[in-house]
């Protein structure tokens, strides 16, 4: 119930501040909830709040070893950092991976033990399992790499309410893959309430990951 209220409060916060016409679930106690939103903004979390939260995709993909990976079941109870990207990405993707690895070096063991970093390629055409593994190993051998089929990728994007992948032709057969620019952080309630764009400082990451691992997402 507590969780529900928190989510609803966020929805109302969003409704109050951002999208007055979009949220249909504002049942009761508007003034009280709204004043509570001030506290929520001044949150102990420092990432970017996603409202409504992203659900965890219900899909079984293939990992870099060729084994099935059930995104929900196999990350149950963990703090999941989910990132969609591609290995020919020159800029944002490797930086996100390097940033997360750097942050993890600083975190206490009880936090890192709860963390799971999962990379889903948005470029199954070029990203073979071997290539994804090789790429991830540059950052951290514990990062999990998943290679969806095109249909599975579309399903994941639908689950996340993200736009279908588009490509930018770079000539000579090369292309860039346009994809979400942020990392999704799932708490143990299977919801990503928080996302992290490029440029998040190490103290923001450390603060939020520690809280998510030890307390879950709540206010």
């Amino acid at each position, binding site marked *: 119930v507590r969780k529900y209220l928190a989510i609803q409060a966020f929805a109302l916060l969003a409704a109050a501040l951002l999208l007055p016409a979009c949220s249909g679930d504002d049942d009761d106690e508007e003034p009280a909830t709204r004043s509570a939103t001030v506290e929520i903004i001044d949150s102990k979390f420092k990432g970017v709040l996603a409202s*409504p939260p992203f659900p965890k995709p219900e899909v079984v993909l293939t990992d870099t070893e060729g084994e099935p990976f059930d995104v929900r079941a196999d990350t149950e109870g963990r703090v999941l950092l989910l990132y969609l990207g591609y290995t020919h990405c020159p800029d944002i993707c490797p930086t996100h991976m*390097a940033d997360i690895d750097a942050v993890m070096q600083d975190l206490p063991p009880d936090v890192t033990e709860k963390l799971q970093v999962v990379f889903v390629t948005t470029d199954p055409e070029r990203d073979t399992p071997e290539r994804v593994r090789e790429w991830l190993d540059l950052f951290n051998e514990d990062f999990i790499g998943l290679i969806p089929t095109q249909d599975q990728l579309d399903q994941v994007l639908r689950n996340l*309410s993200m736009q279908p992948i588009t490509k930018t032709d770079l000539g*000579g057969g090369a292309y860039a893959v346009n994809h979400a620019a942020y990392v999704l952080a799932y708490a143990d309630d299977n919801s990503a309430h928080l996302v992290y764009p490029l440029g998040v400082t190490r103290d923001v990451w450390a603060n939020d990951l520690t809280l998510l691992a030890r307390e879950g997402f709540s206010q």
Partner: protein
Amino acid sequence: MKRNWMKWIAAGVTVPALLLATAACGDDDDDDDADGGLSVSGVSGQTALGDVGSVYLTIENEGETDYLVSARVLGDLAEQVGDVQHHEVVTQGGSMEMREIEKMEIPGNGSLELKRGGYHIMLLDIDPPIEQGTQVELELTFENNDPIEIVAELGAPSEQDGVGMNGSMTPMHGSMTPMHGSMTPMHGSMTPGAGMATATPAR
């Protein structure tokens, strides 16, 4: 620009920015280019698997507005690198998009910064792939000034500049207009673009 250099050196980063060009280096021979106002600093680069790479740098301009119009690889690697392009990473709807830019403006008495999440020079189709740490010689050409040669070391992708520092956050380039309901930065710890508050629900 001097301060930039100090920062890099202080950070213990070896900047392989060899300014080979005469006009921009300040060695006063008689190569009196228009106003000779361009200088390059903070050259760095990264490559993950060696087949694509990106180069970052800052171009200071003490003269009139100019444009970076092209970059090409010199030397032994010229054949190996399939193409060199400049891109801007645009974050829109929470989604990242890479766009090729024909020319990049270097404002007069200002600077152009190529950095992660913003502008970069991209090396594509490097075949065979290069090793991390390879030094690539590049010639940058401009609309009004003489070309400048630089050497960029394509190191391993690393933690973003500034991320390790507590306190202020390097704001993203561009703005983030989420597709998924709304996104609200917490705690004022982020400096989102103006688009942050505009919600475009995708459902």
